[in-house]
């Protein structure tokens, strides 16, 4: 096995008790020192997957290797290197300093305790002189999340797992949380795994993005997920958008026609005059945002079309050539064959 692979998952399944499967992933590997984003709608299994990766939740089937080794029975030791930040963090009923020092004291890393606690506080934009001695109940929601992240950063973890870390905090706290997570990755080579709905940020910093839907991995990168209703019409399946435009897809036997994905690389941005072969999906829309994708060196362009947003991946040079910018009216084109059922 490649020594740089930190996680390797094969046929991993998970369910709570006798309930339905919450995760069913055929294969996934995460490299050491990478920033991996996990995206997907609510209830797609992101949090469960993160907890499994943080060794906080046992999986029910398949295999998971950590650093090339089977972690069974060693979860407690591994958790000393893998830390997890909850979406809505909890602080111990003690001062900010003691909250951050807790993990270090557990590891007997107390030689430079004060220095590490203060450094962690500064990383999340909190002044040690002002915040270190504050009790847990005198912090705002954003400050709680930042202190919780500081407590994890103080450990200089090998893996930092973040579960929608900015979902419940104000904008400035969100920015500081994101910067602090990136600083850990840059300075210590920490492997960062983050579930978030903040796609522009993820696109910018991540080396890989995993799309989850109903517990299954539907692809790498920011896949376009198109929910139904998909209706059969003259031998094909059609999703009618609120503005009347239609997306055509091919019927596949045994496939449930609930939701489909389209890879952004399969969606082209074309000029109005450009001709397309008959049967190709051609949709008019407005560019809402553009983000540079660090992993591919391309740009990801989000286009609002009807009630959905579709993302198209295109080389930066091409963007310069066609001169599009947010609010530009564009036409998207992709083949019905590129619509995959999940």
């Amino acid at each position, binding site marked *: 096995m490649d020594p740089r692979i930190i996680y390797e998952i094969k046929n991993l399944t998970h369910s709570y008790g006798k309930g339905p499967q919450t995760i069913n992933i055929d294969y996934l590997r995460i490299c050491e020192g990478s920033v991996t984003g996990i995206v997907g709608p609510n209830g797609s299994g992101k949090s469960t997957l993160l907890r499994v990766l943080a060794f906080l939740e046992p999986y029910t089937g398949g295999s998971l290797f950590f650093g090339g080794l089977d972690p069974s029975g060693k979860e*407690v030791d591994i*958790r000393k290197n*893998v830390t997890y930040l909850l979406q809505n963090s*909890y602080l111990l*009923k003690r001062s900010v300093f003691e909250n951050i020092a807790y993990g270090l004291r*557990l590891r007997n890393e107390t030689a430079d305790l004060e220095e590490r606690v203060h450094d962690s506080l500064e990383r999340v934009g909190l002044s040690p002189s002002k915040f270190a001695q504050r009790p847990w*109940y005198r912090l705002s929601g954003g400050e709680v999340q930042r202190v919780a992240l500081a407590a994890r950063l103080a450990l200089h973890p090998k893996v930092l797992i973040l579960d929608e870390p900015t979902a419940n905090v104000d904008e400035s706290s969100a920015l500081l949380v994101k910067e602090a997570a990136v600083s850990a990755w840059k300075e210590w080579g920490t492997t960062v795994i983050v579930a978030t709905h903040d796609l522009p940020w993820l696109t910018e910093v991540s080396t890989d993005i995993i799309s989850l839907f109903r517990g299954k991995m539907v692809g790498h990168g920011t896949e376009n997920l198109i929910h139904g209703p998909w209706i059969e019409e003259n031998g094909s399946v059609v999703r009618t958008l609120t503005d009347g435009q239609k997306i055509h897809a091919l019927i596949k036997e045994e496939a449930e026609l609930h939701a489909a994905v389209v890879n952004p690389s399969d969606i082209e941005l074309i000029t109005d005059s450009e001709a397309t072969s008959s049967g190709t999906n051609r949709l008019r829309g407005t560019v809402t945002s553009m983000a540079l994708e660090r992993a591919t060196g391309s740009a990801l362009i989000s286009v609002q079309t009807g009630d959905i947003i579709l993302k198209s991946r295109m080389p930066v040079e091409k963007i310069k050539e066609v001169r599009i910018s947010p609010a530009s009216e564009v036409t998207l084109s992709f083949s019905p064959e590129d619509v995959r059922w999940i």
Partner: protein
Amino acid sequence: MDFIIQGFFQSISLIVSMDEETLNIVLTTLRLTGLSILFILGLGLPLGFALGYFNFPGKHLLRTIADTLLSLPTVVVGLLVYAFISRRGPLGDFQLLFTIRGMAIGQIILGLPIVISYTATAIEGLDNRLKLTLQTLGASGAKLAVTSLWEGRFQILVAALTSYGRIIGEVGSAMMLGGNIKWHTRTITTAITLETGKGDFALGIALGIILLSISFALNISLSFLRRRVGNS
């Protein structure tokens, strides 16, 4: 009415001068309740933690039993323990009847369910993110348990104070198991009972004021702790 007023003024002078008998009664009470609460906490905290923290078959039954024992009548406890520690009882050889240790057994039975039940409630009421947080910071086993107990410390202190309030104020089992022997097993509550019966209101009222002061101090501490809990 005069005898009450007279008794009240005499009681003040008894408290101020703190005569030997009054002092002995107060010290006997503190010694007894101190011994009892030590055992109650030593046994009750781990048992309450286990009951609140772990899931095991029969947990609900145990919980119901602990909750039922909260309102155990003191004289029933006195009767049962008396039967066990009297000369003819199975523990008769230990000669515990009419001793502080014998009285402590009764008080432990009375106070233990309070600490067990309240600690279990405190642990069950802990935020469900606490365990995840501690695990992800690297805690496990005993450290996880101790930190969880510490997180519930305000509620657990409330349990300890409530339990202490119950044992210091009870008279039934203390009277039956201690025998109210002067200079030996006479406590504040048994002394009040006796002195009232004899018509010596001064000592009764003096001891009543001391007992009320202790209760008042306990309640002040309780309300302070409740405010702290409210901040959590």
